């Protein structure tokens, strides 16, 4: 459950409540957003968030006070999602686990700037397009963008939250961003930017 193997703590009830209120609860909006973006379902996201916080409280002795509570909580939420929610998800993971080998392949390099997606199109995307584009990505790609771009986690923290090597974090992010741009490019075309 913990990010690092830390010695088990023995907190008093008062200490537990202090940690819960002062170190765990401040991340509730970020955690809710993560739960919602993973499940893409309002009821499931509420259940997942509640399950995660109850679990965090139950395993609070595995958390070392003053360490990275946000990363610790995100890891619990991610694991709960995989164990309890992903099974019933209609959408199986499509991530190609050869991704490290294909890191920065020549095709990506040649498409360095998607030619039909320019700033003039992006500037009009102030509605739900970017949110829909993010939600349309496969969950593993969606996750790295959430952790990095929305929550500002460092690569090392992401590697620990996701149990993957840092190299995989980097390559997955790179591919996720290319896929997101492709999606935004489709929206741009629908908005009339045929060759923006």
């Amino acid at each position, binding site marked *: 459950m913990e990010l690092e193997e830390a010695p088990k703590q023995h907190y008093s*009830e008062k200490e537990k*409540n202090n940690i*819960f209120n002062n170190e765990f*609860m401040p991340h*509730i*909006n*970020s*955690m*809710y*957003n993560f739960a*919602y*973006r993973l499940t893409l379902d309002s009821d499931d996201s*509420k259940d997942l*968030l*509640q399950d995660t*916080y*109850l679990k965090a*409280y*139950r395993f609070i002795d595995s958390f070392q006070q003053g360490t990275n509570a946000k990363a610790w909580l995100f890891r619990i939420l991610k694991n709960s999602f995989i164990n309890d929610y992903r099974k019933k998800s209609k959408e199986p993971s499509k991530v190609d686990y050869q991704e490290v080998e294909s890191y*920065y392949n020549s095709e*990506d*390099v040649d498409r*360095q*700037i998607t030619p039909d997606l*320019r*700033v*003039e199109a*992006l*500037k009009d*995307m*102030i509605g*739900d397009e*970017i*949110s829909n584009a*993010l939600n349309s990505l496969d969950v593993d790609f969606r996750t790295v*963008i*959430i952790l*990095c*771009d*929305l929550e*500002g986690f*460092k*690569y090392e923290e992401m590697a620990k939250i996701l149990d993957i090597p840092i190299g995989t974090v*980097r390559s997955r*992010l*790179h591919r996720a*961003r290319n896929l*997101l*741009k492709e999606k*935004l490019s489709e929206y741009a075309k629908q908005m009339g930017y045929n060759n923006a």
Partner: protein
Amino acid sequence: MNTPNKWVIITLKSMSNSDQGQRKTDCTDKRNCLEMLQLILDGEATPEQKANFKSHIDECMPCFQHYHFDQAIKELLKLKCTSQAPTDLIESIKSKISEKPIY
């Protein structure tokens, strides 16, 4: 539309009209630049890598545009894709913790 969105649009407009004539139009080191670009956007680059990339984009139009475009997407994501937990859900979690202490 709120103020931060306007700010993003202004940023995008200003970058698209920048001094295109002073930069070369093709990058000779795309692979390395792509890698650097990501490290810099994500705050993972060393000061030296940052300085090198800065001098590179002063001369290279594709990388200059790519950098600002990716940065704009990153900012838009943060503006558009975050949300607040419902108050009743927060209250429900708090009350479950206080009514069921686990020993």
